[in-house]
């Protein structure tokens, strides 16, 4: 049974269903309850997160399992790492992924490395949920997409869902997983609605999803950019070009096979990622194919990404910062040397 719900509600369901199933699952973060300790608050008057994504959980699960934290990211993310190592299955919300600057050590040097440094004698079943993405007019410190930073760290798994259905199934898998997982939620997707199954279901981590089939060109797109890639693909169809849109869904582990098989078929690859261009997910996927899929390629691998600059505040600049169907078409035009594509 599916029904249309928003991305935010899909995330909420994944958490609540997992918490119902497993008493060790707890949720902590800044205002995830949101004023829960204020006496006069009734029912769902508590914030439930700065975007309301975790609304209602405090009512069902109480203060022991839904914990507001001080504004102390190192403190509570580090506590979550250790709670995981000592028997809980915490979900820690890092409100904006941009705040990783306040708690990278806890993720990179503690959570990601304890198991290895301890010779395998520890596990860290921790999920860090965090908001990312530009387009919200939230400026340079609240608009980054930092999954590349996490993908680089051995010991971390990284999930970037592109739609409500994937978000729910992947988040449940992440909570069930015995390793540390960083789960990215695009703030501009929260209100997007789509069919989502009811009840408890999982989508395996490390399995890409082909969001559109096509023989002529592979577009690997990350997170929200999957929607942009699909828009470009529709336009390309008008020109008889069938683009295959691959959604990796998790960047670590990365489903190399699905990407390589697609390129083997289409011989052309464009990667679309709104993050900054250097040392990032787009270059990572490009390098994969330039190595293991080189013989499949008929053309240079192209990347459509944000520029090497912070995210600007002004709408007129932020709009040109982000990838767009037009930018993808321009790259295709260059790739197959057909100027007319730009004009679709």
């Amino acid at each position, binding site marked *: 049974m599916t029904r249309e719900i928003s991305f935010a509600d899909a995330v909420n369901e994944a958490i609540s269903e997992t918490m119902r199933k497993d008493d060790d699952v707890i949720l902590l973060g800044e205002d995830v309850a949101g*004023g829960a300790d204020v006496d006069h608050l009734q029912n769902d008057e508590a914030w439930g997160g700065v975007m309301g994504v975790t609304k209602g959980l405090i009512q069902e699960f109480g203060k022991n399992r839904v914990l507001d934290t*001080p*504004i*102390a990211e190192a403190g509570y993310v580090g506590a979550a790492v250790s709670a995981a190592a000592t028997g809980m299955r915490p979900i820690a919300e890092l409100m904006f992924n941009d705040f990783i600057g306040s708690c990278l050590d806890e993720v990179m040097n503690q959570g990601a490395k304890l198991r290895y440094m301890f010779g395998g004698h520890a596990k860290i079943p921790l999920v860090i949920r965090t908001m990312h993405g530009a387009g919200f007019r*939230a400026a340079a410190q609240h608009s980054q997409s930092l999954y590349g930073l996490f993908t680089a760290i051995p010991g971390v798994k990284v999930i970037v869902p592109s739609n409500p259905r994937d978000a729910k199934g992947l988040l449940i898998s992440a909570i069930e997983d015995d390793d540390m997982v960083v789960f990215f939620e695009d703030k501009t997707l929260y209100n997007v609605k789509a069919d989502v199954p009811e009840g408890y279901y999982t989508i395996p981590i490390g399995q890409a999803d082909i969001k559109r089939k096509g023989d002529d060109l592979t577009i690997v797109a990350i997170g929200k950019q999957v929607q942009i890639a699909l828009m470009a693909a529709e336009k390309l169809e008008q020109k008889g070009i069938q683009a295959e849109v691959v959604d990796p869904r998790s960047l670590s582990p990365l489903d190399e096979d699905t990407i390589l098989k697609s390129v083997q078929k289409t011989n052309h690859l464009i990667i679309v990622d709104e993050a900054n261009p250097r040392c990032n997910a787009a270059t990572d996927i490009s390098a994969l194919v330039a190595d293991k899929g080189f013989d499949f390629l008929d053309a240079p691998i192209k990347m459509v990404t944000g520029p090497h600059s912070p995210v*600007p*505040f*002004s*709408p*007129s600049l932020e709009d040109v910062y982000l990838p767009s169907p037009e930018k993808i078409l321009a790259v295709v035009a260059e790739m197959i040397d057909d100027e007319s594509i730009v004009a679709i």
Partner: protein
Amino acid sequence: MRASQVQQESLTSEKAKWMYQKMVEIRQFEDQVHETFSTGVIPGFVHLYAGEEAVAVGVCAHLDDKDFITSTHRGHGHCIAKGCDLKGMMAEIYGKSTGLCKGKGGSMHIADVSKGMLGANGIVGGGFPLATGAGLTAKLKKNGAVAVCFFGDGANNHGTFHEGINQAAIWNLPVIFVAENNGYGEATPFEYASSCKSIADRATSYSIPGETVDGKDTIAVYEAAQRAVERARNGEGPSLIECKTYRNYGHFEGDAQTYKTSEERDEHLTALDAIIRFREHLVANELSTEEELHGIDEQVQEAVRDAVEFAEKSPLPEADQLTTDVYVNYKSGEEE
């Protein structure tokens, strides 16, 4: 009130009227932004300072352009008190190319380094180290400048609070740490998130003076800041001042503020209001007259109207501005 009377002489009529004007500028500016935001014209996250005017103004009354301040996500008030241009601010909040930051920063990053305003800051706790650095420059350049770090009650639990103040203390830097304890960090009450009885108590950890004042009593803030700034300028090191205050609006625009009680809101908007109280004080102590103050009100109204008009009429930045201002220079042209 006794301490107030002792110091009162130092507050000249001129300074008092400047302070009143800045407070009214902040209030009207923020009320205006609140109204405009609700029409959808202003993009992004906006956090309003209305209600807390006495803090920014009571402190900045002791500073001039060579002194630096660091600010927070709730930075408009600090900007105005430190002398930033209202037009440039409003244009920035609108994302226009005529903004103080050419529209690249927005509400959360308005800055004017030439005025000693080191930027609103989207990162809670981001200001502590920055203020320490500005204090270090002042100490090394021996230019008599001080640095002020404004921060919220929520920020007082961040690690940078500890690192910044400790550092300022051991290096004996001219830095004043000003807590704006408005009772909440987002929807979370101060008492829930903070294990201290008062933020001022935490001064003990750093062997520096710490005091709590009524942050809606302009004179009280002014006097506490005077002591701290004097100490700093005399090379006696940092101080911590906790100002108990209240934000008239929500955490950000759009917040339903369910966590507040209607009693506290009412009280703060009326009997406890800093501007009303300061106004009464000025008149009662013959530092100004009703007419004069009314004149200031009207003058500010016009200034805010001008700022809105300026912002509305200004152009958005051109696309070619997207990647400028990232570096002073990126590719080095020189040969070895």
